[in-house]
């Protein structure tokens, strides 16, 4: 069996923002839930260092891509919920465009390898 190598740091870092934006576009969420969902969706391969997510979220909030509010859950737990802003939607679209471009070039080259 071919072992899948760990995902490169740079790729994890570069994909963080588009992933966060895309997740938040489906509805507001909080830090912990975002980490768990990314982990689940990637089959455990994208395990963000918990402490690294929050600076990213704060930077994005500062740049006006997302906004936050404190809310209390039914159990009385206070959590900071983030949601997408209009600038964030625009940024997300741009990310999608760029990722699709890179992906299509790579996929095209790969196809040629097997011709």
């Amino acid at each position, binding site marked *: 069996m071919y072992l899948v190598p760990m995902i490169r740091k740079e790729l994890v870092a570069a994909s963080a923002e588009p992933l966060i934006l895309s997740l938040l576009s489906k509805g507001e969420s*909080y*830090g*912990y839930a975002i980490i768990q969902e990314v982990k689940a969706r990637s089959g455990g391969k994208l395990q963000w*260092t*918990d*402490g*690294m997510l*929050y*600076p990213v979220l*704060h*930077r994005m909030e*500062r740049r006006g891509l997302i906004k936050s509010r404190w809310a209390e859950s039914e159990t009385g*737990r*206070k*959590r*900071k919920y983030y949601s997408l802003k209009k600038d964030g939607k625009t940024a997300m679209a741009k990310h999608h465009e760029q990722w699709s471009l890179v992906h299509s070039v790579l996929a095209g080259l790969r196809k040629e390898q097997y011709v």
Partner: protein
Amino acid sequence: MLAAGIKTPVPLEELESHLRDEIERQTKSGWSQEEAFKSAVQKIGPAHTVQNEFEKVEETKEERKWKEGQIWSGAILGFLQLISIGAVLFNSDMTLGQRLSGLAAIATSILLVAAVGRLSHRVFPVIRAQRTRTATIVILGNVPGIIWVGIFTRFFLLGHEFPFGQYLAALLWANCPPLGVFLGLLWEIQTAARKKVAMAGS
């Protein structure tokens, strides 16, 4: 977390909420409270790395504020200079010579702000501590200023009768250039310290 050495600007409340969620998840899967706590804290990552990341976010905000501050200061000073120039040009009591002299005083002060601001770092020491800087600026700004105004008033204003034009030109020459030097120094002290601190932090 405070014990681990994390200080502001880390959002402690948010991280605490995160820890609680993680501990809850782990205790549900059977870990003991203590093990869950240790593991959760570890997962956050090394304290200094987390803090560094948060400091980087704060730095950009400070950079922007500094730039904005400089622009605003420049705009306000420029406006004041324009008023001074207007006063020199549009009053009816100055001879041509006096007007030119007054304009020269204003121009000199502007040049001094730029020159002292950009060049004095070769002579003036860099003061890294914010509080020492503020104290230096307050003392440098007020003590010589008060002494100078005192001397000027006592020996110049009160001692002689001047025609208005000459009086205004002399006033400008007495005050604008020193003010220019002071503002230049102020600018330089802040800029040099920020550069040094930024280099040390990266």
